[in-house]
């Protein structure tokens, strides 16, 4: 009799954990879903300020156009003047960088740093945590005013930049904090998403603050990290012409 009870309890335990895991997978899918725009185009203006530990800073302003349903995006640099006209075009798995001075395209990777900041080109797109990562552990934690579920994720594909990530997801299924780790488990960067803006029935971060853990300066006991602040303004769901997501567009926009 005792044996049967133990077996039954174990079985219930396994079933509960499977259900819980399924719930967490659902939650991750929702996290991805809330920042992915499959039904419409998305455009926005990004202001990226990179502040070095020594205090010097550089600002980049870029216009971003996304069509998630076709896995396409175009990013056009508007500032600084020296880089004006530089653009990225993503079509499926292919990503090109257009150089307006050399007037040529080079094949590049979404994992590259954008304008040498901690912001990656891949950060312009929506997330796919549920597809690219497996859940290793889950716990509950309070992050400021948010009650968060903390996911420890490990990549199930080599196509992602960071093989290990840790995300803090608030009750509204929005990522509030993100830690990216290298293959060896070293913390590379921490991103904070203090605020979001609603666009249609989806969400776009209003501000992202990224801290590079490898580039820093110690001033007494204080550690100043390289910090990249991203402000996303004027998000719009207006449909963009098909011709925008082409190489010709990037060439044309530079001849005007």
């Amino acid at each position, binding site marked *: 009799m005792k044996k049967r009870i133990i077996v039954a309890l174990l079985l219930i335990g396994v079933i509960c954990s499977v259900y819980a895991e399924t719930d967490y997978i659902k939650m991750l899918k929702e996290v991805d879903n809330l920042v992915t725009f499959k039904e419409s185009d998305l455009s926005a203006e990004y202001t990226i300020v990179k502040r070095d*530990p020594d205090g010097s800073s550089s600002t980049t302003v870029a216009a971003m156009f996304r069509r998630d349903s076709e896995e396409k995006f175009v990013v056009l640099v508007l500032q600084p003047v020296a880089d004006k006209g530089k653009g990225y075009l993503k079509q499926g798995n292919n990503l090109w960088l257009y150089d307006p001075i050399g007037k040529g395209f080079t094949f590049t990777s979404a*994992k590259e740093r954008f304008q040498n900041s901690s912001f990656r080109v891949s950060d312009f797109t929506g997330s796919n945590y549920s597809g690219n990562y497996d859940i290793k552990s889950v716990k509950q934690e309070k992050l400021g005013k948010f009650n968060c579920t903390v996911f420890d994720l490990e990549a199930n594909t*080599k*196509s992602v930049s*960071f*093989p290990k990530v840790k995300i803090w997801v608030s009750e509204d299924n929005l990522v509030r904090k993100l830690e990216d780790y290298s293959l*060896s488990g*070293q913390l590379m960067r921490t991103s904070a998403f203090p605020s979001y803006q609603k666009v249609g029935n989806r969400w776009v971060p209003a501000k992202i603050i990224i801290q590079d853990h*490898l580039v820093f300066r110690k001033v007494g006991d204080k550690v100043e990290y390289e910090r990249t602040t991203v402000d996303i303004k004027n998000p719009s769901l207006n449909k963009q012409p098909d011709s925008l997501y082409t190489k010709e567009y990037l060439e044309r926009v530079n001849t005007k």
Partner: protein
Amino acid sequence: MFLFALRNLFLQRKRYALMALAVAVGFMLITVLTGLSYGALETIKTKAARYFSGHIIVYGFENTGMSIPDSKSYVKIINHSRLPLRTVSPRSVYYGKEVRLFFGGNYIRLLRVIGADFETEGKELSKLPFVEGGIEALSGPDGKNGIIISTEAARLLGTRLGDDVIIYIKTEEGQYNTENMVVKGIFDETNIFGYAAYMNREELNIIMDKDPGWATEIAVYAKEGSNIPLITERLRLEFAKTKDVFPPIHTRHDFSEYRSGNRGNDKEVAAVMSVNAQLEQLKSLLDAFLLCTYFVLFIFLVIVMIGILNTYRVIVYERTREIGTMRAIGMQASDVKRIFLYEAAALALVASAFGFVLGLVTFHFVGLFDLSKVTAAGMFTENGRLQYFIGFRSVALNLFFMLVAVTAAAWRPAKKASLMPPAQALRKD
């Protein structure tokens, strides 16, 4: 007759002293300039052999990516070739753009990270001009996660021996990876060869997310004095027996072309390339420099020749009675000419030998100057000092030029002396 000419030269040494000095200085200049030019070329080749994986590099390709999944099989082929080789060792080299070294929040970009097997290649790499630590510190359990960097890298990062640094690379698939390393050695390089770091191959393979037996190339060091291009070709033919190989590679351009041509080919292909091919452009530059050197020396020789011509005219004039006596006792006109030419040749030989010794002394003094502060000179110097190389061929060539120049200058006065009627010569006061 040559001995007679030598004796004459010795007896008339005061007359010939100035001429001998000009020839000696000329030969010293030739020796120093050619010695330093060849020394620079040899220094670059030695540095390049350490940087570019030996005198001969055997690459493996899958598509356009460098990859030798089983490096032992390549080493086996090379060892069975029975060519005059002294070291054969696999290397994993990270050629990617995103490789950085972090220390205390600062970072530098490296041109390449070289993963070497120190058991087999340690002897070659121990010749790196270390200022602190060395290769031996990477052996054994204490050498785990050790890295060797250049003085330039250490200066930019502010690191010293024993400091912990973080190496950061992007794997072939584009994933970021890092590893904590300990600085076990600092070598003195300020030029492009300085933007490389050396570490254990298997440890680098782990960071690059590769198997332990994987390598990008095999470093092959030939025995002293070997004919590198010939061994390269023989090694290529050896690989061709069992594998697909690229055609002979003479320049880096050839290498890039064959590599691009291999796009889409998933079959393993080997490529054998000599360090000479790697340095083809640099060698052309040094050849041009050598050509300029010889041009300057040619001008100098012309000036010396004019000096010798004039001096010989005076000597012939002063020795007219002597010529008359020689002819009177039965010496033929051609013999008189020959004596003067032999004297000139002997003068060139003796003065050149003296010039050669002067050149060696000059090399010693040039070697005293520490040029490590001159960044541009870093490529051509070892431990901040210019090296010289005196090859038999270059010395013989220089001597030949000097002999030809001096005897040619003495030709006309010697001929004039031989044509002098003996009675008229004897009548001269």
